């Protein structure tokens, strides 16, 4: 059974359709990169996984639970899926440690000591242990994003979602974040990443999903996608971003 499954998902903003009949699967341990031109619906698609974006048609099944169903305990489901945002979204009024501790204590019911131990272990993993006492405003973009990844991991997630995690970063900081993500992928984390980092995709992705105008145009194993993309739109997109 797939970890995440989209079944004919459609979504409209008023009359404008942002997702058109999207169907795909993410198996346990798979790394999927979602790419496509801006406004193609890729962020919207991954936000359907944890119900941050409601949708009108179709079904999203995560770990055997239907995200849109009334009986689904959405906060509980969300606590099991890590999410990393384009603009980090660390809580500016809390120290790095408290950013990691908050949901562990409030949602998972861990003791403060237990949570802090977990947080420190994860901050070490992303190379941020020496900044634990600092506030997000004192960190660089790359450092903030690594903390944000650690914050997601602190909840022991069954999958991680990345929404353009490097596109708000200065170029010299992109790699420190990608390195952490590569490490995660090698450890077998199930990941769905909206990203334009094709080097990252080539290195760790099992499949690449290409979206355009709300449709999944291409959903292919990584070698096939880069080797011989079938659709013209994917070819155009690739030639645009690879030749600059």
């Amino acid at each position, binding site marked *: 059974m797939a970890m995440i499954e989209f079944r004919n998902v459609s979504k409209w903003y008023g009359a404008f359709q942002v997702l058109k009949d999207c169907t795909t699967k993410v198996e346990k341990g798979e790394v999927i990169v979602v790419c496509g031109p801006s406004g193609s619906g890729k962020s919207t698609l991954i936000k359907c996984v944890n119900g941050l974006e409601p949708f009108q048609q179709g079904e999203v099944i995560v770990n055997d639970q239907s995200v849109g169903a009334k009986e689904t305990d959405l906060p509980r489901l*969300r606590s099991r899926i890590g999410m990393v945002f384009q603009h980090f979204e660390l*809580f500016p009024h809390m120290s790095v440690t408290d950013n990691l501790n908050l949901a562990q204590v409030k*949602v998972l019911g861990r003791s403060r000591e237990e949570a802090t131990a977990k947080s420190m272990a994860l901050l070490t993993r992303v190379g941020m242990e020496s900044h634990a006492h600092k506030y997000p405003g004192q960190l660089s973009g790359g450092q903030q994003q690594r903390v944000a990844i650690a914050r997601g991991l602190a909840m022991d997630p069954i999958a991680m979602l990345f929404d353009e995690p490097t596109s708000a970063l200065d170029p010299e900081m992109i790699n420190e974040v990608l390195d952490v993500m590569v490490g995660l992928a090698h450890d077998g984390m199930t990941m769905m990443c909206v990203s334009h980092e094709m080097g990252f995709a080539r290195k760790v992705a099992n499949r690449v999903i290409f979206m355009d105008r709300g449709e999944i145009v291409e959903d292919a194993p990584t070698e096939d996608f880069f080797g011989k993309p079938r659709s013209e739109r994917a070819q155009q997109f690739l030639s645009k971003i690879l030749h600059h």
Partner: protein
Amino acid sequence: MFSGFDFDVIQRSAGYLFREGMTFTLTLTALAMAGGIILGTLLAMARLSSHKWLNAPAAAYVNLMRSVPLLLVIFWFYFLVPYIGAWIIGAEDPIKVGAFWSSVITFTLFEAAYYAEIMRAGIQSVARGQVAAGQALGLNYWQNMGHIVLPQAFRNMLPVLLTQTIILFQDTSLVTVLSITDFFGAAVKVAQRDGRLVEMYLFVAAVYFIISFSLSLLVKQLQQRIAIIQ
């Protein structure tokens, strides 16, 4: 030009003015501020709710309170609260509320409408991504509000909340119309007893000015410090 005046009256009555009057004024201000901010925050959350049966009554309440003169509200509640209280607990006779609690309730309910508008702006000033991040971690609505949104909203709005409190501090002088001995009321009583209206009113004005102006200087400083943090 002050030759015909007797400023000694201030010295003679200072103990009474501050011990009785100013204590009442400051207590009323503090309680109404605390109550008003709590109720106002709940009203702001209700106004921003997507449930019509929550946001419509909250909006109606806020608009009503902001559209009637405070003096009218003071009279309303002073005479109505005993009856409303009796109706709530099912008593036969109007309950005795007393001037103090009647004014606390009045000012809390009135100021809540103003604090609500400030907190509404404050909640909206918190980036939407912050809410999404809290949700994505599995926080429910109240946890998200309590730990993520409201602390940031308060911090952003602190200068405005304090400015509103300075206004509240000045507005409490209106309770004098109920013959309550707040700072202003105490001064009026002394002034009338001793026939020293001009001296007392000058003195009262000076005291209100000094307190309000120093508080607004404090607010200005606070504003600058918040601007640096952000």
